[in-house]
């Protein structure tokens, strides 16, 4: 069943969109990532104009994260205090990100830099997570092996402005979560993603938060940052396609619920190794696109972005 999208101005199969939404929704629920890093390139691939894909994706992430976060609220796996600190940083970062985005647009290389950002961040995060989870699994399998010491005193614990985060069981400075929030906000605005794939590892490895709390808390922060991004796109670029968003989120919300259930049943290490593989696969695909000679060297666009 073909459906015409009013803002994107293309005709797409409705079931394809529902399926994409559902698939990415499952990942969103399982890993606490918005799924934008996967969905945005997929939308490019099925012929949605990039500007529309990025803006609509922000709107869709709000919805899939919202249903996900409700599930986490019921299980009390959301650290509201930490989420709020991350959110403050995130909003500042998103605003900065839009400024950076418009600057890149003015020098005409926004596509390349977005792609490079994807490859570099997905590659680094994916590789780190993969190696770490592999080590964790190996250690846990060793019979009689010493339990892994998770909380070590690092530079995070010696900074000032300490705050107690009871849900996470942490007593750390607010500076690292604020910085993480700002960085994620910048990336979210530039790359058109929620930023969960950066934030989840940052929360685990930099802030030392327990894995169970990380997913709900990142979803909480993502909702507000992507809602902010959606409004920014809707009012400046007019690129939010509500019909596209609704189709993606109908699939997405159902997928997210299924994903949350799967996520609870799986071990944290397995969850992380799966997410790492996913991140590396997307990274590899994007890197190949940059490295191999494209079939069509020319591309058409609207003028203005010189």
């Amino acid at each position, binding site marked *: 069943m073909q459906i015409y999208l*009013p803002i994107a101005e293309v005709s797409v199969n409705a079931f394809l969109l529902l399926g994409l939404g559902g698939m990415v929704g499952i990942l969103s629920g399982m890993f606490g990532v918005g799924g934008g890093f996967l969905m945005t390139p997929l939308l490019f691939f099925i012929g949605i104009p990039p500007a529309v894909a990025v803006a609509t994706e922000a709107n869709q992430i709000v*919805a899939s994260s919202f249903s996900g976060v409700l599930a986490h609220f019921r299980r009390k796996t959301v650290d509201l205090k930490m989420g709020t600190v991350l959110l403050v940083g995130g909003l500042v970062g998103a605003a900065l990100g839009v400024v950076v985005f418009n600057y890149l647009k003015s020098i005409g290389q926004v596509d390349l830099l977005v792609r490079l950002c994807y490859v570099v961040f997905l590659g680094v995060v994916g590789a780190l997570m993969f190696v770490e989870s592999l080590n964790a699994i190996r250690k846990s399998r060793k019979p009689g092996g010493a339990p892994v010491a998770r909380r070590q005193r690092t530079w995070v614990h010696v900074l000032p402005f300490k705050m107690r985060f009871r849900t996470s069981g942490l007593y750390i400075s607010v500076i690292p979560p604020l910085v993480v929030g700002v960085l994620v906000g910048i990336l979210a605005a530039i790359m058109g993603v929620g930023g969960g794939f950066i934030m989840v590892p940052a929360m685990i490895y930099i802030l030392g938060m327990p894995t169970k709390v990380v997913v709900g808390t990142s979803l909480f922060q993502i909702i507000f940052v992507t809602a902010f991004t959606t*409004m920014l796109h*809707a009012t400046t670029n007019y690129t939010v396609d509500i019909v596209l968003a609704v189709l993606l989120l109908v699939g997405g919300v159902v997928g997210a*619920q299924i994903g949350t259930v799967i996520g609870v049943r799986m071990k944290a290490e397995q969850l992380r190794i799966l997410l790492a593989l996913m991140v590396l696969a997307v990274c590899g695909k994007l890197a190949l696109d940059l490295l191999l000679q494209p079939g*069509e060297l020319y591309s058409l666009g609207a003028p203005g972005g010189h």
Partner: protein
Amino acid sequence: MRAFLLALLMLLPGLAMAEEVVLGLSSDQVAITTSFDGSEILIFGAVKRERPIPAGEPLEVVITVAGPSRPVMVRRKDRWFGIWVNTDAVEVDRAPSFYAVATTAPMNEVLSNTEDLRHRITIDRAIRSVGAPDSVKDSASFTAAIIRIRRDNGLYQMLEGQVALDQQTLFRTAIRMPANLTEGDYITRIYLTRGGQVVSSYQTSIDVRKVGLERWLFGMSREQPMLYGLMSLAIAIAAGWGASAAFRLLRN
């Protein structure tokens, strides 16, 4: 002598209006609805003439349908430190968003180059590019890229020999418009030619418009973007919450 004068009299007004086009369209409006998946427009008509079909060169028909013209930025990728990067860019001043040319016979038999240039009939002529930056030596390849990319998307069509012409009088053709159309007036031109020279022409337009929900959403996103953004968020959150609640009910 009298016969000669009579012939002259008949010929004089005839020179201007020897053969005229009477046109019909299967529809002069394309409504872009939610289920829009492209459209096929049937263009048909007749040649009206006051005197017998002139001897000599046969009559040929050229039909063009052109979507609204907009400037296009064409970028070319080049290898740079091992990765493919947009390097050169040429702005083409105007290129129709849709362009179809249908003829009764191969283009070079139907139309002379001069007439093509004058009426901007073939796709190459319909695109205008003035002044590429100095750094770009081969600006023609950028124009060629527009034609190639849009032809692959079904937006530019060269339909040589696709106009059926009966008795040098009745003609018809069908033009397939893809789903990704730009809104606007699609100028439809019909040229009658003999020996490569245009003897008559006719112009009308097909109105391509979004209707219903499509129209309303599009209008709102441009006129009240703040409200549209808030509505999008509200719908998204409602759907997210609704599905979450429904799923919980299902499990209990």
